[in-house]
């Protein structure tokens, strides 16, 4: 009896919680592409890479020539990511929101 009652009560509680999003059809939202998140992750990683290279240079691990070469490559790669991010987000390079 205790088991059956608990089953009913708990099942009802869970049903209320999980069914709520399904009731709000007006808020329906399509899944967005993961491309923006992926690019944001890549951007952060690239920034960290650039900072690491700079710190490595300042600590003497990278010669000035090596650092400049690595830094130039990394910044080039970062710019490609930023361009792609802006394109997906409909934004101009100078930060002005682009047309929808």
């Amino acid at each position, binding site marked *: 009896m205790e088991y059956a009652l*608990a089953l009913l009560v708990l099942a009802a509680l*869970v049903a209320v*919680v*999980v069914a709520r999003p399904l009731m709000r059809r007006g808020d329906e*939202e399509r899944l967005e592409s993961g491309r923006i998140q992926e690019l944001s992750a890549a951007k952060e990683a690239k920034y960290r890479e650039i900072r690491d290279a700079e710190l*490595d240079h300042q600590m003497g691990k990278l010669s000035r020539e090596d650092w400049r070469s*690595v830094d130039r490559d990394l910044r080039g790669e970062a710019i490609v990511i930023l361009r792609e991010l802006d394109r997906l987000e409909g934004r101009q390079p*100078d*930060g002005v929101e682009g047309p929808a």
Partner: protein
Amino acid sequence: MAGVGSACLAIALLTALYAVAASIRGARTGRREWVTSGRRAMYCMAGLCVGAFVILEAAFLRSDFSYRLVAEGSSTDTPTFYKVTAVWATQDGSLLLWATLLSLFATAVLFLTRRSLRDIAPWATAVLGVVAAFFLCLMLGWENPFDTLAVAPQEGAGLNPLLRHPAMMIHPPMLYTGYVGFSIPFAFAIGALITRHTGADWIRATRRFALIAWTFLGAGIMLGALWSYTELGWGGYWAWDPVENASLMPWLVGTAFLHSIMVQEKRGMLKVWNASLICATFVLALLGTFLVRSGILDSIHAFGASTIGVQMLVFIACVIALSAGLIVARLPDLRSEAKLDSLLSREAFFLLNNLVLVGLCLVIMWGTFFPLISEALTGTEASVGPPWFDRLTTPLAIVLVLLTGIGPVLAWRRVTPRSMLRILRAPVTATGFAVVALLAFTDAAKSLPSLLMFSFVAFVLVVVAQEFWRGTRARRVMTGESWPRALARLTGRNRRRYGGFLAHAGIAVLFLGVAASSAFIQQRDVRLSPGDTVKVGDYKVTYERATAKLGGDSGGTGAPISLGAVMRVQRGGESYILRPSRNYYSTTDPSKGVISRFFDGEATSEVDVRWGLRRDFWLAVRPDLVSLEKPIARADRRFADSPGQVQAVVIQALTELYRQDPPPAAFRAIVSPLVTWIWIGGAIAVLGALVAAWPSPEARLRRVRSLYAARLGRELSRA
């Protein structure tokens, strides 16, 4: 309340299955409401599991013996502290702990990623739901912690005395947290593979969970070693026991994963390797859970034979098959985005360190499963012992420590040989001095592996110190800050990097303790009568007198009888007293007499240790009860029907008899050099991991919009 507990588990299972179905539907149709509903179902499942766990804990705390589990694993005289831990000392309770921790971890990660990883997260939810549903099925089908007895006994069997140790209180939850924690990156890796989003975003979202899992698993392993050292009475901390190995294997592969994901984040390389590593880590975590429960390998830590071994094996086989199939199917999406620029680069050394870590894991796996392999091939079960493990793992461990030192000094992408030599000059010079000092002032030369290990540990420590010093100096040049401020800011703004260095230092220190205590341990097993003296290394040990206590043992474990010894230990001008003892717990075996059942139950060593930074002096005693056998047998016959109070007086008289005229007792004395550094090193490694796991300010940077180059410069200058 047992019915409510069972109902919680049943609804949790249905909720987990619903979460799987809703998440997959949401992911396939793109309808967000189903994804949200599936995620909410996982939150509900966590609530239900926590509810079930609380109900079970309450049953243990109030000694409700109508629960089969409480009757089997606790008793009224079990101290409250250990009643709490008794839940996970049982098979069923530990499964509930597993499921509860998994549901909490899943809730945390799904909440944190609710607005990101929108393609991957629903699939990860489904994977986590499947894992949770499997463990809930195990409980509901075979090992229900809420099973009740038709007639509740007056008294329970009590907690296994070996588990009555503070380290045991938190060792299993820590291991499970580690095992469960690795299910998070595993689930997101599977989600990334399914959706073909094989970039670094799933790694960024789950890296901290992997690091937390690694930290907890490592801390759990350390606590297990500490328990072994101070409770099991053999004097060691690691015996290459199958269950110990089972916890070490996922930790090793998890360590490799934590290093190689950095290469994927920074260079877009090693994607197949990383997916394989996290799948392997999760499989090994399941294997560790299986080994403890299946009873297929003999271990002091195992629960013994159980009914869920086959089910776990089938589940592990399914996880391996599906993970491997998915990785193979997604090989075109897992191509590296860059090539290795140079063998003199951090990523190259990370790869090398990965190979050593995986090699170590394979060696340990072979040795652990050798009894099963030999039985399958020859029909005879043969096992490899600690010397086999030591012989094969020692060289790999030495190489690993060396790589721990070299990796951090290298830059990403490439470093010129000249730069490398310049950076390594100071550590190599310092290591040279350390070797000379070791040869001149210690016995390190007697053991070449130890000498190599000590040298490489010195190398790692100097490298780490140099990294902190150079980094702080560079920051001072840039900012003009004071040394302490520059050091704090440097570490705070590069937590992952400098936390990692701390962890490296901790692991090196840990290996220092392992090498010294393994190679230079001095041990003596002797029988002594009161007044006898024995020499152990430089120590003089005198058995002054026997002790006997009824209740109130020094460890607070609730042992009814504790017999021991007062030992004077002298070394040079130093003199102190150690009090090792042996606890005797009563048995419920009806074939035993009313008095003998207090002496013939489980017994545990309560060792006494003089801890020291240079060496520990470890002492255990095993009293000889032969002289008490006849009086106990007589008392069994004479006081069989006497009231409990009379029996207590008789037991007190018997222990007093032992105290006044003890026969020679067996002692084990061990001088273990630098063993304390194992625990210190472990603590430093945990601290480093926590520093690395702490969110960095960089994650909170606000976006800046401007022309790309200027924008880059501005955004970067914020660090």
